[in-house]
C-alpha cells in the first residue's frame, strides 16, 4: 500500500496514531506483492532465458531490465510492464463512467472523463426523450440541446475504444443520463476498483451514489428510474408546471437528505486524502463512524477525523482478515 503524504498538519499524538495505523495496514496487505513495487532504476527480476516483452515503464540497460517509473510490476503472459499508481484513467469496455459535457458537436456530445482524450457520446447512442426507437433525423440533431447542454453531468458506459485511443460512450438504458440534484466529486482513478455494481441506492438515506471508474463520483438525491412510456405524460405535465411557475423555486432538497449528501461527500474526500480504495462499504463505514462519534459535518475534514478513519480502517481490515 502506498503511503500518501497528507497535507494536513497533525499534532504529535495524532502523528503517532496515524503512523501506527498505516503500519498496521501495511502489514495486513498481502506480502506477495510487496516485492513487486519498484521505484525508478530498480531492477525487475526477470528470467532471462524465457523470451519476454518489455512493456511500458521498463527499459533495458546493460542487459538488466530497469524500471523507469515508480509503480508495481505487472506480468501478463510474456509481457512485463510497470503500472504506475497515480495515472490517468485507463478505460475498459463496459466501464461505467461519470463525465461532464464540454461541447455539443455535430450529432455527438464531447464528454470530459479525466482521460487523455475526451469521450464521445453519439446522438444515436442516447435514448430519445420520448422513448421511441427510430432513426435520428436532422430535427433531432437541432434539438440536441434539449437533452444535454455544456457543463451537464452525465453517466454513461464505455462502449468501445477506437483505434486512435478515443472512447465511445453510450447511455442506452434508463439508469444512465443526466445527473442533477447533487454534487460531483473527483478522486484519483486508481482508488476506484472495478466491481459488479457501480450504481448504489442507499435506501435508508434516500441517496444515489454512482462511483465512476474514471474517478468521478456522483452523490445526489435519489431519482426514480422512469419507464419511457410514462415519461411522455410526465413531460407534458412538467411543461405545464414550468410554464406556470415564474420563479425558479423548484423544490429544494430536503434538509436531511442534504445533510446526508454532504456527509457522504466529506467521507469520500477524507478517503481520497488518505488514499484508501473508495467502495460503498468503506463509505458507509466512514459515514456511520462520523454519526456515532457525533462529528459535525464540516469537522470531518479536520485532522482528528482523518486519524480516526485510518485507525478504523486498520481495524476493519483486521476483522475481515480474521474471518
Amino acid at each position, binding site marked *: 500500500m502506498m503511503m500518501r503524504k497528507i497535507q494536513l498538519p497533525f499534532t504529535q499524538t495524532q502523528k503517532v496514531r496515524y503512523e501506527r495505523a498505516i503500519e498496521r495496514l501495511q502489514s495486513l496487505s498481502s506480502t506477495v506483492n510487496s516485492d513487486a513495487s519498484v521505484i525508478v532504476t530498480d531492477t525487475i527480476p526477470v528470467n532471462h532465458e524465457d523470451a519476454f516483452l518489455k512493456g511500458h515503464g521498463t527499459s533495458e540497460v546493460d542487459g538488466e531490465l530497469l524500471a523507469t517509473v515508480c509503480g508495481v510490476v505487472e506480468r501478463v503472459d510474456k509481457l512485463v510492464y510497470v503500472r504506475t499508481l497515480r495515472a490517468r484513467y485507463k478505460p475498459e469496455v463496459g466501464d461505467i463512467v461519470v463525465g461532464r459535457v464540454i461541447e455539443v458537436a455535430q450529432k455527438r456530445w464531447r464528454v470530459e472523463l479525466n482521460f487523455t482524450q475526451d469521450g464521445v457520446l453519439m446522438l444515436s447512442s442516447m435514448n430519445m426523450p420520448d422513448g421511441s426507437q427510430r432513426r435520428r433525423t436532422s430535427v433531432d440533431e437541432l434539438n440536441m440541446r434539449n437533452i444535454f*447542454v455544456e457543463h451537464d453531468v452525465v453517466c454513461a458506459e464505455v462502449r468501445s475504444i477506437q483505434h486512435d485511443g478515443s472512447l465511445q460512450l453510450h447511455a442506452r438504458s434508463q439508469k444512465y443520463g443526466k445527473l442533477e440534484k447533487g454534487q460531483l466529486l473527483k478522486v484519483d482513478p486508481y482508488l476506484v476498483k472495478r466491481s459488479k455494481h457501480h450504481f448504489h441506492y442507499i435506501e435508508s438515506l434516500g441517496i444515489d451514489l454512482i462511483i465512476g471508474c474514471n474517478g468521478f463520483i456522483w452523490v445526489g438525491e435519489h431519482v426514480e428510474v422512469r419507464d419511457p412510456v410514462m415519461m411522455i405524460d410526465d413531460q407534458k405535465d412538467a411543461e405545464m408546471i414550468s410554464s406556470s411557475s415564474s420563479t425558479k423555486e423548484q423544490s429544494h432538497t430536503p434538509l436531511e437528505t442534504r445533510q446526508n449528501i454532504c456527509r457522504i461527500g466529506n467521507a469520500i474526500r477524507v478517503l481520497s486524502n488518505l488514499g484508501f480504495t473508495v467502495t460503498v462499504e468503506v463509505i458507509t463505514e466512514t459515514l456511520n463512524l462520523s454519526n456515532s462519534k457525533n462529528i459535525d*459535518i464540516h469537522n470531518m475534514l479536520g485532522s482528528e477525523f482523518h486519524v480516526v478513519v485510518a485507525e478504523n480502517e486498520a481495524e476493519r481490515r483486521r476483522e475481515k482478515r480474521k474471518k
Partner: protein
Amino acid sequence: MYFCLNCVVIMVACSVGEQHFLKGGIAQELRTDGRKRLTYRHTYVETGVIPQANGSARVRIGGTDVIASVKAEIGRPSSLQPDKGKVAVFIDCSPTAEPTFGGRGGEELSSELALALQKCLLGGKSGAGAGINLSSLLIKEGRVCWDLYIDGLVISSDGNLLDALSAAIKAALTNTALPKVQVSAEVADDEQPEIDISDEEYQQFGTSSVPIIVTLTKVGEHYIVDATEEEESQMSSAVSISVNRAGHICGLTKRGGSGLDQSVILDMISVAKHVSETLMNKLDSKISKIHKQLVDSIVYGSLFKVEIKHNKLHEKIVISFGSRD
C-alpha cells in the same frame, strides 16, 4: 477607501442541477462541504518558510494555498513624506494554481489583488489610516528609512484569495525581524549618512494594528464567508472588508456586476466585523503558538555558546555548551 473592481472570475464548470444544489445549500445553511454560511474552512498557518526573507508565512485555507514574504531594504523616504518609511505590495499568481495564469494570463488578477491589499493596508495617499505603522520604519528623518517589499504568491487557488493573502501578510509581518540600525556619523544635509546594520540585534515588527480582510460573497439572497471556487462562480457580487483589531474598517472593495442596496452593504459590514473578531483571534493564537516555539528555541540558543566538533577518530559529533561571554 471604497472602489469597484472588474474582477477576473475563474470559470468553474457547473451544470444547472449543480448550481441549483449549491444555491439551495446556501439558502438552507448547509454548504456542499457541510459548513454554515459564516464558517471558515480549516486554516493552517506556517511562518518562517523562506529563510532568506526578513519575514514570511504560508497560509492554507482549504484548497487555497498562498505564501507571503517580506523583504526589507534600506532606502530614502520620499520628499512628500519625510517621516515615513515605504511599503510596496506585489502579488503573483503562479501557473501551478491555474493553467490560465501562465504567461500574462494571471497579470490582471494579480494587479487587482495587489491594489486591493495596498488600499487596505496602506490607507490613503497622505498615509492616513494605514494599518502598518509607517513611522516605525523610519531611521533618520528625511534621509534613511526601511523599504518593505511584501510579495504574495498564490500556489493553489480554491476561492477566497484576498482573505488568504491578507492573513498571510499579517502572519509574515508578525514574523518579520528588522535589524537594528545605527546611524554612525552626522553629515551635511545633502549627503547620505553612514549606517551600521547590526547582525545580532533585531526588533520585531509591531502588527497589532494590521487589518485582515473578510470577503462576503452574495449568492442568491444570502451572503457566505470564505467561498470556494464553485461558490464564487455563482456569486452575484462580493464585498471584501478589511477590519483591524479595534473593529474599525480600514478598506472596502466590491467585485461583481450586480448592484447592492445600501442597507445590504451596511449589514455586510456588521457581519464582517463579527466574523473578523473570531478569525483574528484564531489567527493570532496560531501565530503566537508558532512564535512561542520559536522564541523558546532562540532564548535557549542565546544563553549558551554552542560548540560542535566532529570527533574524527571516534566518528561522533560532540556538542558542548559553554556559558556565553
